[in-house]
């Protein structure tokens, strides 16, 4: 903490490395979309210039409360730091979407600790489970009892806020041998029915733990039947897809769809294929906080797309 590793972090990096950072690393980049094509507007400092409707929400992810291994001996501590950043925000977000892996082992005390710390934000939470949240004896019973009230199936649901339709999907249940994340026929049928009455101009935000699109098949970073969900979303003019699971930033655009994965608040994971496995990445302790963080998503004035600011705990 006392060491300011951040100063070294930004030095001597060429344009190519910076571009790579914008895709994969924990630097804060504001993305905006014009006519379905996103472009990076600038780094965090310039983001304040975005004209807001007053409707801002946060994406937090992969808190892994209970994790205490080498990559971060105190995941609850870094979650507290992230929550302190939320509390210090000059404008309170409307709510927080948590894209799963709240806990590391689905233990009651891990859920208790997570609830306590997130409760300090004073902001409403919307949850979807990660695979780490469903490994209690009851295989998800603990999660559903806490967060599943009013949800369908294994915990999927939708809600509307400020004219935006939000859909929380669960792709970590009933996983098949050799496969990727899984939504299943029942959830896809529900999604189709849920979207039916919505006009094409309704902005849609979908959130789920594992990336819906296939990001890196070899590590299981994708959803087996994700394309079926994306097909149902194709007709909408503005679709934003928020995921976690991979503990690093990734941005991708396909047509009117923007894909965004958030940083973890617990530990970083390696870039696809850059390590023997996707396991927790051990980095020098003075660099850890530059690879953890949270994302602010702002709905802009008029017909503009959603804007992201990914902020690390080091900033």
């Amino acid at each position, binding site marked *: 903490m006392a060491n300011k590793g951040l100063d070294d972090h930004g030095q001597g990096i060429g344009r190519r490395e910076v571009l790579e950072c914008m895709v994969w690393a924990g630097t804060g980049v504001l993305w905006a979309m014009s006519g379905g094509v996103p472009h990076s507007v600038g780094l965090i400092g310039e983001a304040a210039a975005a004209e807001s409707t007053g409707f801002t929400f946060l994406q937090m992810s992969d808190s892994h409360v209970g994790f205490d291994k080498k990559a971060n001996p105190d995941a609850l501590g870094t979650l507290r730091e992230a929550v302190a950043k939320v509390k210090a925000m000059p404008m309170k977000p409307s709510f927080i979407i948590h894209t799963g892996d709240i806990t590391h082992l689905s233990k009651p005390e891990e859920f208790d600790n997570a609830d306590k710390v997130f409760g300090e934000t004073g902001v409403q939470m919307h949850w979807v489970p990660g695979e780490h949240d469903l490994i209690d004896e009851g295989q998800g019973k603990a999660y559903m009892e806490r967060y599943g009230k009013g949800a369908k199936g294994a915990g999927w649901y939708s809600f509307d806020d400020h004219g935006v339709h939000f859909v929380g999907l669960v792709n970590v249940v009933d996983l098949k*041998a050799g496969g*990727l994340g899984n939504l299943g026929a029942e959830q896809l049928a529900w999604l189709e029915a849920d979207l039916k009455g919505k006009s094409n101009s309704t902005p849609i935000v979908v959130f789920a733990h594992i990336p819906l699109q296939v990001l890196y098949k070899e590590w299981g970073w994708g959803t087996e039947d994700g394309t079926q969900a994306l097909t149902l979303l194709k007709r909408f003019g503005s679709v934003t897809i928020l995921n976690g699971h991979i503990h690093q930033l990734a941005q991708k655009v396909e047509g009117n769809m923007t894909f965004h994965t958030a940083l973890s608040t617990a530990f970083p994971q390696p870039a696809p294929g850059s390590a023997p496995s996707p*396991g927790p990445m051990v980095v020098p302790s003075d660099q850890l906080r530059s690879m953890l963080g949270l994302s602010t998503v702002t709905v802009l004035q008029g017909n503009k797309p959603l804007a992201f600011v990914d902020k690390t705990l080091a900033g």
Partner: protein
Amino acid sequence: MKYLNSHLRSAAARFVPGRALAIAMLLGPAVGAMVAFGTVAAEETKDANVVTIDNFSFGPGELNVAVGTTVKFINHDDIPHSVVENNKAFRSKALDTDDAYSYTFASAGTFSYFCGLHPKMVGKIIVK
């Protein structure tokens, strides 16, 4: 205990092997003695009947064992994994770092399994 063992052996001698094994399974604690009695080779390679989980993969990915062998799965990763048989023949709880799960294969066959958290991780136990 000595009486029970000798009784079992005489019982095993009278029955066909399959039925003897079934009885041994019902009697639980006596299974080890029975298997050792019948298959010395399996006893000698007992330590080899371990599948370790390292770097999100099961090793060895394919393991050949004799009927009655207990296979131990140990997780050495910093991330929990589980062991789930494709047809639900067995399913471990989530194994945290250095946790282990053991399963005794009482019948012949090929048992394909995967990690319930990371289904890309797959392995196979061939029981003969």
